[in-house]
């Protein structure tokens, strides 16, 4: 399936700086967690965001959803600059932009039944809905994500990790969003469960026309799921391309190192990869440079 060509999310020159408190009384400075990041996500598209821990992936995810607004730059959603919205309009917009996190157990309320948790989305955003209508909608959502509706009265601890993530996904799609930030949504799940959740995300995308920002360190799953991929390194995008182009022809040294480090689940191939890696120690990666389009749609930071 090819994604349509208009952007649903447009991020321009986004930066997020955190203050570094100087307890010795010196000049206060900032930590540049994310610096000058721009990308679009088209309707029905999945953009993958990869990079080492601390590179700013979650910071971008929270900035794009305005859960933690950027220090500089703009985030436009369906053409509207989110920073310019009134609080009331932003509340309405929130229904259309959702997040799914790594740890579903932390997202759930241990003392609230999972049905009430999903229903809460309606209570907050659809006050016109009656009890029976909400209950029916929750049952439909449960079915949609592969949970038995009769489990709605149960509590989070009665579910497995994969089921809890389904519950979180049910709530995320309750208000018919058009965009979901999925921040490491399968990282805490068993290998045997990850494929279930990825298949579900993909089915929902096809049905509901969702766009995803898929943040993950599982580079195999990113290639499988994502139409395009952005590689983040030290708060900056160093490469962005169609996923096949990125994986088949990585240009930036960091992307090359990252992809080269993924173990292959084939003994002979993996032993060969380990031996080759041992023979060629990693060289340092230079900072700086500008994003340049080296092939159609393939952007790489290049030092002039």
């Amino acid at each position, binding site marked *: 399936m090819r994604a349509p060509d208009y952007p649903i999310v447009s991020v321009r020159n986004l930066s997020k700086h955190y203050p570094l408190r100087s307890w010795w009384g010196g000049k206060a400075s900032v930590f540049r967690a994310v610096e000058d990041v721009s990308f679009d996500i088209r309707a029905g598209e999945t953009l993958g965001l990869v990079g080492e*821990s601390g590179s700013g992936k979650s910071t971008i995810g929270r900035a794009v959803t305005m859960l933690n607004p950027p220090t500089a730059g703009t985030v436009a959603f369906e053409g509207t600059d989110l920073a310019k919205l009134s609080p009331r309009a932003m509340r309405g917009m929130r229904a259309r932009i959702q997040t799914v996190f790594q740890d579903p157990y932390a997202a759930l309320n241990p003392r609230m039944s999972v049905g009430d948790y999903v229903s809460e989305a309606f209570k907050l955003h659809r006050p016109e809905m009656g009890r029976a209508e909400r209950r029916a909608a929750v049952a439909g959502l449960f079915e949609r994500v592969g949970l038995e509706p009769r489990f709605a009265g149960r509590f989070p601890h009665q579910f497995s990790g994969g089921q809890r993530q389904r519950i979180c996904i049910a709530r995320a799609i309750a208000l018919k969003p058009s965009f979901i930030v999925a921040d490491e949504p399968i990282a805490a799940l068993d290998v*045997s469960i990850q494929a279930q959740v990825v298949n579900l995300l993909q089915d929902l995308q096809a049905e509901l026309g969702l766009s995803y920002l898929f943040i993950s360190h599982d580079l195999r799953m990113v290639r499988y799921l994502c139409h395009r991929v952005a590689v983040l390194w030290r708060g900056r995008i160093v490469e962005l391309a169609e996923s096949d182009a990125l994986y088949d022809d990585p240009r930036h040294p960091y992307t090359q190192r990252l992809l080269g480090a993924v173990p292959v689940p084939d003994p002979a191939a993996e032993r060969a990869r380990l031996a080759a890696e041992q023979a060629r120690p990693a060289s340092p990666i230079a900072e700086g440079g500008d994003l340049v389009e080296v092939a159609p749609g393939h952007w790489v930071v290049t030092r002039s």
Partner: protein
Amino acid sequence: MSDMPRLETPLLEVRDLAVAFDTDGGAVHAVNGVSYALREGETLGIVGESGSGKSVHVLAMLGLIPRPPGRITGGQVLFRGRDLLTLPEKALRKVRGGEIGFVFQDPMSSLNPGMTVAAQIVEPLRIHLGLDARAARRRARELLDLVRIPNAAGRLDQYPHEFSGGQRQRVMIAIGIACRPKLLIADEATTALDVTVQAEIVALVQELKREIGMAIIWITHDLGVVAGISDTVQVMYAGRILERGPVDDIFADPRSAYTLGLLRSLPDLTRGRAGRGRLRQIEGAPPDMRAPPPGDPFAPRNAYATPRCRTEAPPLVQAAGAAPGHLVAAWYDLPAILAREAEEAR
């Protein structure tokens, strides 16, 4: 792969190990009759569902199960001929951190935040090798060099928080190998690390293995890592071993439907997006260990299960027609099923 000579007596022999935890909801049978042997210098990769008893069975070997609620309900763990389960705590302490080194992911056994790195590396060297303070400190510096912490001498007196996550795991490995163990146990040692850092740690452990000649038990959920470093692979589920055998055979000729499911569910890093279908997922969820299913614990999720699988747990035996030492616990015949499927698909 190991080029160590194969000795007749195994380094480690686990016999019918069983561990239970007493909980409010009744006894959890976390490890349910696990038996295997490990040769000197052999690398055993253990994969399996979370909660399948991978961690608990190694903690039990090392005498680190909290009691209560834990109970070792049966079995023996023979390490160089001695049963670790009946060894007095004092003798066990000499083995643990001495002849057996370990690196865990969880904080229980990770670094003490209030002690310098030097103090923590020096401790086992003094306890187990009886080195004096100066010799131990010199050895500590060599160990930090060995695990490639830059400027080792300058960093000995720093505290764990002054190291990055990858470096802290290197320090853990330095402690794990400090006494040149016969066996290193690594439980999800690289799970929390970036893939590039994981690659460095895996390479480092391979190098140390060549140098020290130690055996390794490497527990991970990453089938790629297991493929590269293991001589033998063991697949666990619900406190049991479902399959075990030489690494190449496990990947090329899996005999347990669970192993096959895991291998099939992984997308291929080198495969383009065109024409790719849905991922082949394993249905269902792992069993609740407070009330495990009767029979084969994987049966409820196994499309190939026979009626017998649901009532009677299969023993772990040599798989028919497979490489010697390739064991499987299954009543169904996976190669026959796959051949039939291939036939029907044609």
